[in-house]
């Protein structure tokens, strides 16, 4: 009986521990994680930058990772055309040339800005939380009326030879037009 009690206590504790990170994972981050692979569907990469047949589409988180397992779960079983989606976490932009899409999240706005600078005009779709200044990616998340929405800097995407479909632009709160 005591063993049973001990066992049920342990399992309750284990369950609590297991669910703790899940509960801590805010809905905001889950929604953002769900958005990331979807963005890729509405973006066309230049032919040289597309994943070759059989090769994965690489979705990177550069800097600190706010999503945790949520992102892995969001891409699980998802395909982009013929490619599986591979999540790669990088602490810096070293190796970023393998990314097709990068969520860039530095410790500060300054750090994010530097990482974006280093990615430069490589054909990487950059996504950030920061909305203003140079720390802003091609797609930047915003919270509006309690919902996750996003703005699109189409001019920046054009400089990296990426083309964003009108459907994605239509959902965006605002679009900085390509000139």
């Amino acid at each position: 009986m005591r063993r049973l009690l001990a066992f049920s206590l342990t399992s309750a504790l284990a369950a609590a521990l297991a669910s703790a990170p899940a509960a801590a994972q805010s809905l905001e981050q889950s929604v953002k994680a769900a958005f990331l692979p979807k963005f890729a569907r509405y973006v066309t990469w230049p032919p040289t930058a597309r994943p070759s047949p059989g090769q994965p589409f690489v979705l990177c988180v550069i800097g600190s990772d706010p999503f945790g397992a949520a992102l892995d779960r969001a891409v699980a079983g998802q395909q982009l055309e013929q490619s599986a989606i591979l999540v790669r976490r990088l602490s810096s932009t070293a190796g970023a040339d393998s990314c097709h899409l990068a969520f860039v999240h530095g410790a500060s706005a300054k750090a994010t800005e530097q990482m974006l600078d280093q990615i430069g005009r490589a054909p990487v779709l950059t996504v950030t939380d920061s909305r203003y200044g140079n720390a802003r990616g091609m797609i930047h998340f915003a919270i509006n009326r309690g919902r996750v929405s996003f703005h699109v800097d189409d001019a920046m995407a054009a400089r990296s030879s990426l083309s964003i479909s009108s459907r994605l632009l239509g959902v965006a709160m605002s679009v900085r037009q390509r000139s």
Partner: protein
Amino acid sequence: MHMRIFQGLHFVGIICGAGACAPARAEIVDQPSVEQLSQLSIEELAQVEVTAASKRAEPLSAAPAAVYVITEPEIARSPATSLPDLLRQAPNLQTQQIDARSYAITARGFNGAETANKLLALIDGRSIYTPLFSGIFWELHNPLLEDLHQIEVVSGPGGTLFGPNAVNGVVSITTKDARDTLGGLARATAGARERTAAVRYGFALGDAGAMRVYASAFERQGLPAGARADFDDDFRGVQAGFRLDYGAGDDAFTLQGDVFDTDLDPMPGDGDKGHNILARWTKRLSDRSSVQVRAYYDSYDRRAILVRDSLDTFDLETQFNATWGAHDVVLGAGVRTTKDLFDNDLNAFVLNPESKRLWVANFFGQDRIALNDRLSLILGLKAERSSFSGIELLPNVRLAWQPNDRTLLWSAVSRAVRTPSRIDRQLENLPLLAQATEFESEKLIAFEAGYRGQPSDSTTLSVSVFYNLYDDIRTTEFTGPTGGLPIRLANSLEGETYGVELWGTQQIAPWWQLRLGLATLGKNFHVKEGHVDLANRASLGNDPDFKATLRSQMDLTSRLAFDFGLRASDDLDNPPAKGYIDADARLAWRATDGIELYVAGNNLLHDRRDESGDPKRAQSVERTIYAGTRVRF
């Protein structure tokens, strides 16, 4: 489209009434899984309400109160071409069009051109009620409706954080951040009664800022004669302005301004001119605290038939927000000074002195205490002092309880005052009318309770009830104990109002939404013992017992939208005007991504009808139909 998401998913979080959202403090206990979210389209994902985040963008009015928010899509789809007509979308406001340019708008009673004096309206924080009579000259404000981000309409005193004159309600109009209006927009509408044209252009300023400039013009034909009054109310004008937003990281800066010039017919030179400029700076001090400073200057000059009224306003306000544990604290102070000139060559009623500088200052503090995950207590206190009043203490206590994820129950008790206006204190016409040097603030203690929630997956509902106790409402009486001239204004009416406000949305199909609204009002006032009211309770206004609205929004195809609205307003009693049922509609076609064409109409069920019972001013309203286009470039 986004309603599908509610099926099979449980969420917590913010509870949205028809457009009105209350951020909840509760942690997420049962949220959709990432796998479920991954099944949604990008459009649906953009509609998922996320709790934790909402606090960050918490609107001023997030205090539990009867709040209706006119959202950006509602504004874009409205057939209204002017701000007061747009405000008809709020079920908790009563709107009377008086003539082609003037409107009387109120919440919870006292409507009328002279009596709608208990409402505060703000455009980006700039107060637009006039200290002349505490009412609002709506015709002075013609912002580009396409620039509006949202309009929060609070019925009731609205809490601590709004400025002076928030007695029966608050209308807080916010325009879009300039960074959200890049590129060009042109709009033109034309109909038999009105033509409008507007153009706006927004451009980036470096990487952290943007600016937009706009110009607009309108020409409105006068309304047909009313039951008892007929005058020439043709109205035309221009307004232009700009807004600049700048800031990356911890500082955000906004500078905006408008200039306008309108004409009316009766006498050459009649019309209104004005300009304003506003600066706002917000600094994030830490993750948990921020400070905001806002200053503005506003000036206008109104001329009509031998009357000149001008007002210059300077206003400075600062506000500090911080979170400490379970406490969300706001502290602030504001000061405003106005200098007016009221020159009346039309009749013998004058303000004495003709020109005067007034001051109003206030300090305010509010603490929102999370008693537990589900229960919050809000304590607020404002101390306000004006040139015409001593220190008025305006406390309010609010309780918000979220018994489950889809329900918010709230209640509030507040004290509010309308401090004396220039007319209340200094209008005279000797030997008939003497100044009321003793005129005091009109006082209100408001008791409110409400429910806001999502009773089913496709339904949102907000219900609020109120019981308002008024004292010292304006009357007119003899100065002598036994009667005789002169007469003067006094504070001898007291009484109560009560009512229910209800609104909700029902998503019938992914492409079809219905909105319902109802507001009722009961009034029971008496003149205090030993006093008379020679004005026969004119200051109580002229209100319908109920007002009901129904709106239907349909997306017939991805490019074709059809909306219509029905509204019913009960009879007005004093003076009488018949109640009415009327309709508006709008059919819009998005020809390309950048071009929208539409036809719209208002007052469709009548050639013409009475709307305001005002015997001296009211013209009839008539059916209007117009065609319009919006082009983005």
